[in-house]
């Protein structure tokens, strides 16, 4: 354990970790892999196992140097760090893929030190992503310097709901690439819808769609539901939109989307936790859409390297509504 966070010492510790890992293995048995720096900030003292599992899930397609900043609520100032490595046997391979992990524990009053130390810990010439696991941190002044560490910001807006969206949009306008997992959760719905509308016959019905119902379970429509409405409204400017509550068929807030037109009814609805169903007047088909784990959602976001104009327009439109 290091009692202060000195980048040089941590990097030396990492070298030692690699030397130890390599002992007793053939030269090519371990691959030290890194395609980015993934900086994670969390306030949950109990998420250690879950977070490491998520990061391990990401390692397959996006090996990275992982810097976990664990923000503590203790009366005394704390700043410490330790290094480890995570290894896994990659799909179909004989070589272990290993990523290094630096865990920093700090109280809020030491976040400025964490920021300066992190500057020396990010991997040269590779992208840096900042995953703000506790989105409330975005509203804390002590956290603001941390935002300067990356130009890509990953959040999940669900815990705070739509009230955080203007802050996300501000970041976006200031040049950050913002990625919200509440939007990523819409992908299965959006993709299934897009696939259904590949039918030229359904495409011809688009101008006739007069209204759309979005069925949700729970107290209120979620941010994902609001995003979905804005996204569809931009594509169906003639249609009116309404949220309707319904009993849950599937975990999560979104349950169904119903398109009403003068000529054709179309419904995309949840059947259960793993399946969606597309219903037209003459055909019902099912597609597999299992609930996705956090690593899977993040992986989708990481696969988008540049700007995401569809999300950016949807975020702006959701705030405007």
């Amino acid at each position, binding site marked *: 354990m290091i009692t202060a966070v000195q980048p040089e010492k941590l990097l030396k510790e990492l070298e030692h970790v690699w030397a130890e890992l390599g002992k007793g293995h053939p030269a090519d048995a371990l691959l030290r892999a890194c395609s980015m720096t993934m900086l994670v900030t969390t306030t949950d003292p109990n998420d250690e196992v879950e977070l490491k599992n998520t990061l391990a899930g990401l390692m397959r397609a996006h090996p990275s140097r992982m810097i976990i900043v664990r923000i503590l609520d203790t009366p005394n100032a704390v700043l410490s760090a330790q290094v480890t490595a995570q290894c896994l046997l990659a799909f179909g391979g004989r070589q272990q893929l290993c990523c290094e992990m630096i865990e920093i524990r700090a109280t809020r009053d030491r976040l400025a030190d964490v920021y300066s130390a992190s500057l020396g810990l990010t991997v040269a010439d590779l992208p840096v992503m900042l995953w703000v696991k506790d989105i409330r941190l975005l509203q804390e002044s002590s956290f603001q310097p941390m935002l300067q560490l990356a130009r890509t910001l990953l959040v999940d807006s669900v815990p705070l709901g739509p009230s955080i969206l203007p802050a996300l949009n501000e970041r976006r306008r200031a040049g950050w690439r913002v990625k919200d997992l509440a939007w990523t959760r819409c992908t299965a719905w959006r993709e299934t819808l897009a696939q259904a509308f590949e*039918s030229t016959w359904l495409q011809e019905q688009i101008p006739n769609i007069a209204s759309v119902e979005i069925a949700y379970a729970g107290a209120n429509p979620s941010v994902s539901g609001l995003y979905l409405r804005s996204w569809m409204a931009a594509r169906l400017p003639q249609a009116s939109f309404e949220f309707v509550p319904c009993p849950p068929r599937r975990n999560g807030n979104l349950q169904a989307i119903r398109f009403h037109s003068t000529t054709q009814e179309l419904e995309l609805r949840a059947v259960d936790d793993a399946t969606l169903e597309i219903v037209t007047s003459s055909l019902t088909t099912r597609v597999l859409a299992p609930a996705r784990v956090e690593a899977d959602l993040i992986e989708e976001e990481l696969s988008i390297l540049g700007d995401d104009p569809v999300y950016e327009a949807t975020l702006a439109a959701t705030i405007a509504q």
Partner: protein
Amino acid sequence: MADANPFQDPQRFERRVPPCAVVIFGANGDLTKRKLVPSLYRLAIERRLPQGFAIVGNSRTPMTDEAFREKIEASVREHLENSHFDEAVWDEFARGLYYVAGDLACPELYTELTSRLATVAEERQTGGNILFYLSTQPSQYATVASGLADLAKGNGGWRRLVVEKPFGHDQQSARELEVALHEYFTEDQIYRIDHYLGKETVQNILAFRFGNPIFEPLWNRQYIDHVQITAAESIGVEGRGAYYQEAGALRDMIQNHLLQVLSTVAMEPSAVFEPNAVRDERAKLLRSIRPLKPADVAAHAVAGQYGPAAIGGKAVAGFRGEPGVNPEAMTDTYAAVTFLIDNWRWAGVPFYVRSGKRMPKRVTDIAIRFRPVPHSLFDNESARPNLLILRIQPEEGISLRFSSKQPGPGMKLRPVSMDFNYGTSFGMRTPTAYETLLVDAMAGDPTLYTRQDMVEASWAAVQPIVDAWGNRTGPDPFPNYAAGTWGPAASDEMLAARGHVWRVP
């Protein structure tokens, strides 16, 4: 209708596939069971099939739709590599499976098929779009095309025809096949499948070459000494003896797969990544291959046939001893060819291409050997030329070999390797070649399909060898290599004539 679907988000969604029916001729065959239907089912698992989708199978065996579904289910369960079988997806997929029995030469088959496809279009909302897949004997291609004369015209939907190799058994028959297909289908309706082009690692050659500017300036005669393309199989003919003895390694592998790989390695960059632009460049390259004069064949091409041997203590039959093979067969189970490309980029750079059965291991790779340093500061033995290896299978990846100083006193150099491994860098299942190519055909993207001019150009490159080997006189040269070895000595001599040696993959 590319812009008519406002819900598409190309940055996130996989390639869009319009509603369609896939008609498979030869639905009882091995290819259908092992590759086609498992690939289509995997696409269903990954939500890449359209809502309106159906498969109509055809073979001579009478069978109900239900019996066909059961048969296909068994095949999918057996051949679904690296994926799980999901009952719910299967139930949905199976509802779209239909079967029409009939002989390909009988006009009644096509009448029934027409009526069945109309019903399927109604029931499964396939939009009248039809992809015909010829998974039959090549000798039946023309018959099927003629039977589809009316259906090919289309009536409110697109029609496409996927044809499996071989595209003819020589230049002449390739042209005859073209004429037969073009009588009913236009060139842009015909999708000639070469599954090598659908392999992720072959596609990655384009990404590697044209997405990384540091390599392209070196990619020419000034810096590259020669190129070796190897496709070795450790197995023999495995029950395909009757087919293989008519084909041989030159026709079965080099004329199609390996010349397509060669064209991908050597082509010029296209201005845009669009189907015809990329295929134009591939075709141009294939047309630049120097045609061999009959007198030059012996120095540029080597045929081999494996004889019996013991591999790891187990006796292995020679080719002529394989079931279904004529004991006097003159088939080449090994072929090695030196291709020369007559253009500014590649003038004087030999491309050595070899393919064989019963080699020591299964491997397909491309080795690009760079020229040695112009003046060596170190002893010649240790400073070896750089070698770039593009590994297609197994252990797909890229390695660059360069020299490094050995630690310690003195200046001794040792070759070391920088490795990129697909499996470790992208630790996920990659789609099979058939998944990629089926989606492309349904989506109307022929980039990875072979065009007729490419077929003709590749036949032109090998036809002199086919002719020379067909008119062989003198003593029986086969077998000339033992099973489990890297081929005949003459192949080594072919390279030695230019001061080169085959690398051991």
